[in-house]
């Protein structure tokens, strides 16, 4: 390359070519590591860590026992700009990048994964779907509220359709003049539906067209005919309300349609692709949270006169898991950067969601073992991480589906 550049210069001796431009062509600038975050992203990480320690950590056990989120902490999320991270400043958001949102989800998950899923769904699913496909009117109506005081739920799954999302039965029949739609049906497993003030609902506006009738609606939670059912009693993420939703002749104005009628299936797939990176952030936070809560114990606990962290068997286990956690971190933030840079990222997003949920489960499980008997009690936080991480391999695309997605893309590459 050097000789080519030089020959170009000799052929055009009069070309005004600055030395620095020449230097840049010959010597590529030093590329950053994936884990070299920008000043702003580092500030976000520090701030969320501090917030999580001060505001969230003291109440985690209490909320797990009560099975509910404290409203004051929810408000604090909004007051600190964590619910509208990518929303433009003109709508009251923090106008940051996608990586910052993933960082926030990770750092919150390291303290309470239930709050992390709320923040993840809000930022990576609802807010982004509105920003990508919402009309000006819809954005102006909802983005300011989403940024400042309104939580949201993503309503796709039903009793009969989880992975097979397009087999949904909820309908949204248009009125004869098309000015409004009537929704009938029910949704299941809807996260944070007790706290949400707005629902992003996927329903079929033209069942005869199959999945090509699926349409996304942005619906006020107060709309008549919507019932939020009883909270599920779950193994983990207990503070996050998971409820069924019923729609009985719910009439919504045509302006509630997100983007175009019949494009809902596409929006769901696309937004969930990115949401996967957010989930990977949550699983990464769980893994790190469990690991960091356990390492000091390995120094303190002595058996046979030795800190248990000094036994080679323990050291090898720690090294193995630290390696896998590091791999998850690099994969997750690399996928985030790929998305930010406009590169195709579906395979990488699936990979980091798949792998992060596997690593989180492994790490949480091992941390209980490292703590010994007391790790099995509620005195130690690691049993909570163990319960909280399990749904990671299930929601936003089961691990089997991630494997299928990755396999399909690889097949197309060969």
């Amino acid at each position, binding site marked *: 390359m050097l000789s080519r550049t030089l020959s170009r210069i000799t052929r055009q001796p009069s070309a005004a070519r600055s030395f620095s431009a020449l230097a840049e062509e010959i010597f590529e600038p030093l590329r950053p590591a994936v884990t070299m975050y920008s000043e702003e992203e580092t*500030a*976000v990480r520090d*701030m969320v860590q501090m917030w999580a320690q001060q505001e969230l950590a003291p109440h985690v056990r209490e909320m797990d026992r009560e099975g509910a989120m404290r409203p004051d902490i929810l408000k604090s999320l909004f007051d600190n700009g964590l619910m509208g991270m990518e929303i433009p400043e003109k709508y009251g958001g*923090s106008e*940051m990048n996608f990586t910052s949102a993933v960082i926030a989800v990770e750092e919150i998950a390291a303290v309470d994964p239930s709050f992390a899923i709320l923040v993840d769904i809000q930022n990576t699913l609802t807010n982004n779907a509105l920003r990508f496909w919402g009309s000006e009117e819809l954005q102006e109506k909802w983005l300011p509220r989403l940024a400042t005081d309104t939580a949201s739920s993503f309503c796709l799954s039903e009793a009969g359709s989880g992975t097979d999302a397009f087999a949904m039965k909820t309908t949204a029949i248009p009125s004869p003049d098309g000015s409004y739609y009537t929704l009938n049906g029910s949704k299941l497993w809807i996260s944070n539906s007790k706290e949400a003030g707005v629902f992003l609902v996927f329903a079929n506006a033209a069942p005869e067209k199959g999945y090509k009738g699926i349409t996304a609606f942005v619906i006020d939670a107060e709309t008549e005919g919507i019932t939020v059912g009883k909270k599920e009693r779950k193994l983990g993420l207990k503070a996050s309300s998971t409820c069924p939703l019923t729609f009985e002749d719910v009439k919504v104005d045509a302006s509630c349609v997100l983007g175009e009628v019949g494009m809902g299936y596409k929006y769901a797939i696309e937004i969930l692709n990115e949401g996967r990176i957010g989930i990977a952030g949550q699983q990464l936070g769980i893994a790190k949270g469990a690991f960091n809560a356990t390492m000091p114990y390995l120094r303190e606990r002595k058996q046979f006169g030795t800190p248990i962290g000094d036994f080679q068997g323990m050291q090898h286990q720690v090294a193995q898991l630290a390696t896998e956690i590091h791999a998850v971190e690099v994969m997750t933030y690399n996928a985030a950067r790929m998305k930010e840079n406009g590169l195709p990222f579906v395979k990488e997003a699936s990979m980091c969601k798949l792998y992060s949920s596997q690593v989180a489960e492994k790490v949480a499980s091992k941390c209980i073992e490292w703590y010994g008997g007391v790790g099995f009690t509620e005195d130690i936080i690691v049993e909570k991480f163990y319960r909280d991480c399990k749904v990671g391999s299930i929601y936003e695309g089961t691990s089997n589906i991630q494997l299928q997605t990755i396999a399909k893309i690889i097949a197309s590459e060969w």
Partner: protein
Amino acid sequence: MRVLVGVKRVVDYAVKVRVAADKKAVDLANVKMSMNPFCEIAVEEAVRLKEAKKATEIIAVSIGPKAAAETIRTALAMGCDRGIHLTTDARTDQELGPNSVAKLLAKVVEEESPDAIILGKQSIDGDFGCTGAMLAEHLKIPQCTFAAAIDFDAKTVERETDTGTEVVSFPSLPAVFTADLRLNEPRYATLPNIMKAKKKKIDTKAADSLGVELNEGNTVLEVFEPPPREAGIFVDDVDGLVDKLKNEAGVL
């Protein structure tokens, strides 16, 4: 009233520090750095003054390596209006001593003419606790150190001492105040403020371009950890204790 606050980039308080292999300094490689906790309290005090409309402008100043700009950004995100960064490659935990820092800050004060200068009472790396007092001396202005409460209207400061709190008054501004732990509880920057901080200005200049002699005349010979604490022993009674104190420890 315009306020100048000093912010120092130090090893994060939660880090377990280790001595470098050459025993000349603490090992800072890959170690997490943060704003000195007492500087955070100083910034918080200044920001509260602005919120109470008692201050109109807050300037955050830091002396340190290139990365100290992050510390100034944090101060801006907490609510300061602009920053001044005096860059230096000298180790701010041991090479650049309090007198040098005080002289540099004095130059900044001469240029900016603030009404109040608030610093942390000490840094958690050098732990000298001298910079504020030295700065006041260089400027020949009043100093109220170890402040637990500052009343700018009554011109009084509550100081923490070993025997309790005393109240002192200062005659006039400008004056130097150093923040003690109980002065306030610092806020963390909210995301919207981190955003706004991006647009605030930081003036950068080299510390050695200010015409200040930066050589303290001190050299660090060795840095070492304190000897590990040894186990105590049980004694049977008071006589046994007195015997040990007299004959073994030699303190009686």
